[in-house]
């Protein structure tokens, strides 16, 4: 099963990368605000059903993919055909 994990800096956490991106976009003439930069992890997880897959990915997030002090995450599962 294909999983996509979106990891974001938590609200209120300083995100200098987001700030730099926002400033650059403004320099280009875009009217933007509140830019934040996170990361995307795509992976294939071996699981018999979506619940099991989600539980596995939750564990991956807790143990490695996100640091709960500064990052939140969202899991999207794409069931194979």
């Amino acid at each position, binding site marked *: 099963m294909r999983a996509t994990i979106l990891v974001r800096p938590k609200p209120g956490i*300083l995100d200098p*990368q987001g700030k730099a991106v926002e400033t650059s976009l403004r320099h280009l003439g875009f009217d933007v605000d509140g830019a934040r930069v996170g990361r995307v992890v795509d992976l294939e997880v071996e699981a018999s059903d979506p619940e099991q897959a989600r539980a596995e990915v939750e564990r991956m997030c807790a143990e*490695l993919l996100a640091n709960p002090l500064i990052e939140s995450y969202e899991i999207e599962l794409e069931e194979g055909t």
Partner: protein
Amino acid sequence: MSEPKPRIAVLVFPGSNDDRDAALALEGLGADPVLVWHADRELPDVGAVVLPGGFSYGDYLRAGAIARFSPAMRAVADFADRGGLVLGICNGFQVLCEAGLLPGVLRANESLSFVCRDVRLRVERNDVPSLAQCEVGQRLTIPVKHGEGCFLADPDLLAELEEGRQVVLRYDDDNPNGSLDDIAGVVNAEGNVMGLMPHPEHAVDPLLGSADGALVLGSLVDGAREALHLTASAPA
């Protein structure tokens, strides 16, 4: 007869680059440093452990995030649990935070620029082993060189750290990375595990611009010596 030299482990991860500098500095301060490869499952019989600076595992994902799963880190965690002295420098500090051996997290510098220069530090405590040779309020000049040294903690954790006096070093009116409350170094609640962003191993000789780092590493060497003597004199 000269006193035996206390043995201190310096961990080497793929991407560590200050391991030899740390070992050399420790040797100059009277220790017997031994490099320990990250894949080793056990530590030799040592009085202290140093996690050196560098870019372990290329800083992939988050600085220090991958190194904490090294077999040697499990041994370090056990060593720390038993009260063993552990010092994390720069990337070593990041590894200790990711491993949960120290509180908080180190993020990209506020400026997003890599900083490499001498900074002034203020010593907040000297009743932890790794700062025993310093005076409270003493200013130390020690270089930093990092891209991710901005210490962060949420308000609850920060309150806990202040309450427990776990902030042991602060940048003195010159915060190079945007660290919360100018935090440059912290200890665990017990005080045996310490991490700092500046590099004491690069400031052990006046020829290098400062020898203040020798106070930190010298404290560690003293602590290691004491730990080994205690071990040796403990009843069987």
